[in-house]
């Protein structure tokens, strides 16, 4: 194909987007909605994972130790592989913390004076919460350890959320991708069906299959690119807006969610790259496949 013909066909493809405005809008609309669904599912999945990770990081095991046994317990804690770090909390510090949390009721405890009933303790952070029970058993066997308090239930919930989010995320994105492909294919077929007369005329004046196909391919790619940018812009604005709204509410869990929010910039580039790769490819292959059906004249 000669260069001036190629330029003409590229121009025709871009021009066709404008000429067939209604179907172009329909195609861009469908593709944008599909990208949005995939984008929302991806962002939701990443944020849940980040949230779960945040909660996980805060997951502490409290090890109460007998009087004077703290140094020997510390030596043994270091030997356990799943122990990431630990902080010593003296009985005095523990009492202060308790009193500060109890407000007015704290006055009753203040009367206890020198008779502090709280033991010394270690706050232990773990590497992997999935094996928390095993680690607790090990800590329990250390000489000098009186009691181990662990939020086992929370750990279980976190693990379940993490797994569910991972599996559901993959399933949802995969399912949406299939639905998108089906809807896009139908839209492209509808577009080409409406223009089968045009294709027929082109064939009769001696246009080769490639000559007919190129503008449709260009058109499909342009629609894909427009949809990708549109979906990216809507996602970005929606994401920012949602967190602006969230900032206005004061709910107990919100600070923790805010702390673990994945910044849009961190994921946005990947989403845009994904949209920009898949959009034109979907448009291009859809056009090639469905034009082929109408080329047999």
């Amino acid at each position: 194909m000669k260069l001036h013909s190629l330029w003409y066909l590229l121009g025709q493809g871009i021009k066709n987007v404008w000429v067939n405005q209604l179907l172009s809008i329909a195609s861009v609309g469908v593709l944008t909605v599909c990208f949005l669904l995939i984008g929302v599912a991806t962002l939701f999945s990443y944020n849940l994972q980040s949230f779960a990770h945040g909660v996980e990081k805060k997951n502490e095991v409290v090890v109460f130790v007998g009087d004077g046994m703290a140094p020997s317990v510390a030596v043994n804690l270091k030997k356990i592989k799943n122990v990431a770090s630990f902080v010593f909390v003296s009985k005095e510090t523990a009492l202060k913390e308790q009193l500060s949390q109890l407000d007015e009721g704290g006055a009753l405890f203040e009367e206890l004076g020198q008779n502090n009933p709280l033991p010394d303790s270690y706050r232990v952070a773990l590497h992997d919460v999935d094996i928390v029970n095993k680690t607790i058993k090990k800590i329990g066997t250390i000489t000098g350890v009186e009691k181990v308090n662990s939020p086992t239930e929370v750990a279980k919930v976190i693990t379940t959320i993490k797994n569910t989010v991972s599996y559901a995320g993959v399933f949802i994105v995969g399912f949406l991708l299939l639905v998108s492909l089906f809807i896009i294919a139908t839209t492209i077929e509808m577009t080409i069906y409406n223009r089968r007369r045009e294709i027929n005329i082109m064939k009769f004046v001696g246009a080769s299959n490639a000559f007919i196909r190129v503008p449709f391919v260009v058109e499909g790619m342009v629609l894909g690119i427009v949809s990708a940018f549109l979906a990216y812009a809507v996602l970005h604005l929606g994401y920012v807006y949602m967190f602006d709204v969230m900032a206005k509410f004061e709910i107990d869990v919100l600070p923790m969610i805010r702390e673990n929010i994945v910044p849009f910039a961190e994921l946005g580039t990947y989403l845009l790259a994904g949209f920009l790769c898949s959009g034109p490819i979907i448009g291009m292959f859809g056009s090639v496949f469905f034009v082929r059906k109408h080329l047999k004249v």
Partner: protein
Amino acid sequence: MISFSNVSKEYPNGTKALDRIEFFVNNGEFVFIIGPSGAGKSTLMKLIMHEEQATSGQIDVNGYNLRKIKNRQISKYRRSLGMVFQDFRLINQMTVYDNVAFALRVTGVGGRDIRRRVFYILDLVNLLQKAESFPNQISGGEQQRVALARALVNNPAIIIADEPTGNIDPELSTGVMELLCEINRCGPTVVVVSHEHDLVKKLDKRVINIEKGQIVSDSSCNATTGPAIDNNNKKRGLNEK
């Protein structure tokens, strides 16, 4: 040159549209193909255009054996024909200029040559002033002249016209036929399918009459006579100087 040798066409539903057709059209001839509805005229045109394939027999057009033509050769073959249809078959999203230019673009002609050639042909069919109009902005007669311009722009060896006057007023029909006669005088072979017997008789050309899929008569006439035509166009011919 068009040669049909023992050609039959039967559709998948069992309808036998053509039955052992035989005829030969020389280069530069003007031939009418006439016959009642359902006689097989349109099937014959479809076979020439390679829109349909013959069930049996041999068809040779412009040196192409249409029974053996390869898929990749079809577009090149069609460029050697100029086709005019009853429903004009213009692309409504393109201007008159672009509709005509499209036939040149598919052959890879450059932009400057396209402009020169298209303006010349549009002048020939008296549509220069409508170059920027869209098909739905011009009359049926003008649309048919655009279709003729598109058929001519590639300097085809054969012009095939399927009921070219079927969708236009009777007074404009004579104009279209005159234009076809003029084109024929410039060199190309012209094959016209028509059911307008009066118009056909008036032009005094070779007439092939088809009925029930068979040729019932084939009259060769003096091709040099015909209606009066515009002398300027006659002098210029189809190739611009």
